[in-house]
């Protein structure tokens, strides 16, 4: 019989300098349960778990296992106590094999410290068979798909006899189908006696799999909930005020098609066709959402439109003018607004002030510049107006953009891009790592831009976001367009399209699935 533990966190407090990341948090994880920590990005969930896992030392408070206080000086102690963790960013060495990764830190050895990986391979196969993981112990981790890498992480914890498994935002990198598989694995683990701490901000998954839910906001526990609670209630607990989860948007009134992409192909440095013969168009007053699992050509597509890719063929026209082959500056001048997928790398200069970041694309034009001199007064004036308009929470316009929260950084980027008259608006991952409150705001702004008659293209790996914003949905798989389907297409159909299966093919193998999938939207108002 496996030993099961009861885990208790009492009054855990963690300070980073002046920042209070965890403020007297109490959580009890009963044995054999799936306990969800629900909270927005930056609420302090991951910090709490890093304390529990021995990576951070708590400033105050204690951890109890089966009623006895313990103190962890490092992850080694936590593992010895039966705690395992799957980090949001996998802790796997890409150039090692699965077996080497699993063995690392607790290597079975022969005499004189020589590795004995056969033992590890055997354990991996055992666990892999038990849970149907299908993991090859000798595969190189860098060659494995993300979903399989995650299983390797789970195996790592199980090999160390973890009784409590912490999963930190495990679904962020998965397709909807992979997510369902993971939820099944979690249920199996629970049935086998492993307790799970499941960290997430996605309400649908949380409701589906949890036994208990603890909601954390701004470093504090604000309450617990039953999985039967309604999504709206959970969302408002998480955000701290009533939020409307469904975006109210009028039906699109598409006008003439002004943005056309024909046979667009982008070849990467390695000779791979990362974007492969894409053709689509967007009408004024319409949002085309591009869905797909990360890494299927979305980045290259947007970069090609902006003029950031070298080896591009085909044609991209806006208002009848060819954009391909023009410099980025000319493309921007043609009226393209662009929100890049990684705001910290491409969207902002972190050490520049908010005011400066708000004119990054206009700093050399009047009224912000005259000849070779810039006019700080006008830049500041502009900043104040934008900060008000977009409700950017910043100490001042002079604060460094890098010090703002993710949501506020994104508002700065969005404010800058939307402050010019646009002929085309492209937003890549517009709400990645943004709190629920800001998501709502940003979504409304995007719809407002559409309603002004701008063609809008949204690239998102979050299916919920795609389904919420889109008037039409294009799905990319391995650089190719799987298809363009109308808004309201079902989650399962889209999920399979994201795995490269066209809706027409989907119907054939399962004739039983004759439910009106393309129009059903079973999840209703569940889009968080």
């Amino acid at each position, binding site marked *: 019989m496996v030993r099961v533990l009861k885990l208790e966190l009492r009054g855990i407090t963690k300070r*980073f300098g002046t920042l209070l990341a965890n403020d007297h948090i109490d959580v009890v994880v009963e044995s054999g349960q799936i306990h969800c920590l629900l909270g927005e990005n930056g609420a302090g969930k991951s910090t709490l778990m*890093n304390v529990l*896992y021995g*990576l*951070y030392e708590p400033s105050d408070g204690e951890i109890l296992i089966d009623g006895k206080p313990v103190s962890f000086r*490092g*992850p*080694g*102690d936590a*593992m010895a106590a039966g705690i395992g*963790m799957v*980090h949001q960013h*996998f*802790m*796997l*060495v*890409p*150039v*090692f094999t699965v077996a*080497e*990764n699993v*063995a*690392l*830190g*607790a*290597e079975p*050895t022969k005499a*004189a*410290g*020589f*590795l004995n990986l056969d033992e590890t391979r055997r354990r991996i196969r055992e666990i892999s068979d038990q849970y149907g993981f299908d993991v090859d112990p000798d595969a190189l981790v*860098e*060659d*494995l*798909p*993300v979903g399989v890498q995650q299983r390797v992480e789970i195996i*790592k914890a199980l090999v160390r006899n973890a009784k409590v498994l912490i999963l930190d935002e495990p679904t962020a*990198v998965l*397709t909807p189908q992979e997510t369902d598989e993971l939820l099944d694995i979690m249920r199996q683990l629970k049935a086998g006696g492993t307790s799970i701490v499941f960290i997430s901000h996605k309400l649908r998954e949380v409701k589906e799999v949890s036994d208990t839910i603890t909601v954390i906001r701004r470093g504090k526990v604000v309450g617990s909930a039953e999985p039967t609670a309604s999504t709206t209630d959970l969302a408002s607990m998480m955000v701290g005020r009533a939020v409307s989860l469904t975006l109210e948007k009028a039906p699109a009134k598409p006008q003439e098609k002004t943005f056309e992409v024909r046979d667009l192909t982008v070849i*990467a*440095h*390695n*000779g*791979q066709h*990362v974007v492969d013969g894409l053709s689509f168009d967007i009408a004024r007053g319409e949002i085309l959402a591009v869905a*797909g*699992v*990360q*890494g*299927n*050509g979305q980045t290259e597509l947007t970069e090609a439109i902006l003029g950031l890719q070298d080896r591009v063929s085909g044609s991209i026209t806006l208002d009848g003018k060819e954009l391909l082959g023009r410099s980025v500056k000319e493309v921007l001048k043609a009226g393209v607004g662009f929100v890049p997928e990684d705001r910290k790398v491409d969207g902002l200069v972190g050490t520049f002030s908010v005011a400066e970041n708000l004119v990054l694309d206009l700093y050399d034009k009047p009224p912000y510049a005259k000849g070779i001199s810039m006019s700080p007064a006008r830049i500041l004036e502009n900043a104040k107006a934008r900060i008000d308009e977009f409700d950017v929470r910043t100490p001042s316009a002079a604060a460094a953009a890098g010090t703002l929260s993710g949501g506020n950084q994104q508002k700065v980027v969005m404010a800058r891009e939307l402050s010019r008259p646009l002929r085309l608006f492209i937003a890549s991952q517009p709400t990645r790592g943004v709190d629920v409150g800001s998501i709502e705001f940003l979504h409304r702004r995007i719809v407002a831009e559409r309603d002004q008659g701008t063609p809008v293209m949204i690239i998102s790996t979050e299916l919920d976001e795609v389904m919420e914003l889109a008037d039409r949905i294009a799905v990319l*798989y*391995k*650089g190719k367009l799987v298809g363009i389907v109308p808004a309201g297409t079902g989650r399962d159909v889209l999920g399979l399209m994201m795995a490269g299966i066209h809706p027409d093919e989907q119907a054939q193998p399962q004739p039983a699935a004759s439910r009106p999938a393309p129009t059903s939207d079973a999840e209703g108002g569940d889009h968080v």
Partner: protein
Amino acid sequence: MSTTVSSRPGNPQPDNAAADSGAAATSAKPVSWKTPVLLAAFGLIALVFFGLLGPNKTASFGISTGSDFFQLPALEVNAFGGGIVLSVLLLALAAYAVYLKTKGRPAPGWLTVTFIVLFVAAFLIWVVGGARTPSISLAGLIAGSVTLAVPLVFGSLSGVLCERVGVVNIAIEGQLLGGAFTAAIVATMTQNPFIGLAAAAVAGAVVSMVLALFSIKYLVNQIIVGVVLNVLVSGVTGFLFSTVMQEDKARFNSPPGLDIIEIPILSEVPIIGPILFRQSLVGYLMYVAVLVVWVGLFKTRWGLRVRAVGEHPQAADTLGINVNATRFWNVTLGGAVAGIGGSFFTLVAIDSFTKEISGGRGFIALAALIFGRWNPIGAFFAALLFGFADNLQSIVTIIGTPVPSQFMAMLPYLVTVLAVAGLVGRSRGPAASGIPYVKG
């Protein structure tokens, strides 16, 4: 990870395209035209210079040395014919690489290695054939190469130990020099070369500890600390040399040397004997060190942890491995290894210390490390190649070549540049090398 200092000379960063391909796991590794094109270019050079313009004389290569227990006849080759045959072979290899490239596959390692060996052979035949006395001792050439390579091998092993754990060691030069100086002065004062050898290891380790302390604990840019250490060691040893050693050479700078130990019978086997079984203690230690480091890195628990720390320190940390302690002790060990290499200068090669006795070999060792793809055995052969170029240069100057000796003197450095510029294709170092690890 908060700080990322990733500037590294001559080391292409890992391929990001592969790293961020989530679902598109099928993404092929890039195959560049560089290797096939370089091979073809060198094949043509060989054909024109070593073949078509080759001297129609006979080049003779002695295989046995006087002390071998049986003598083999010297190898005699017509320089013109040999050049043509070898360069045609070279072009065939290049053509095969081009063919592979069109199939989207990279040139395999053996191909490049064979190419280099054949090219060197063609070059040798050409040089010797055109010399005033067209005859050299091949055995002497190779044995001399090994001798010259000894400090390089130790230096690059030091680099392997440091970079595999995530610290760039530019201070190899300083460690060699420190080892050479300390070995000389300690061996002289104790009149015992073995104590000198041990002291050299300690000196190298001390230099390394400074590097480790500043780069790991105080997060100073590793390249800068390394460069500063080189200058510091050079200054200190230079100063002590002129103020202490030169004042009383007998008391401070006439170390007893480490003798060549000949292993009976085995040392008399032609070619292999002088290389493997007619070495000083330091030479034997070199072979042992290469094997021990290789086995240690790839077959033991210690090695797995070291490599994990150099590739993904956070992952190692979450598994209870102390990243910074692992780094500190490995860098220290690396310094000790380089220190032993430094002792070779003063205890084996020359019988006293002089200023800058290491003469930049620490940097060549660094190149050997990259050329050898961060692998102890690869680094060993790369160091051997550099030692060979070095030795060839001095030998062909003696026998009188058609090429001006100044050009021949450039040979080791030319080989270095070509090697590091990626003749062996893309080399990928440990992912976290040069990046300090900060928790949280």
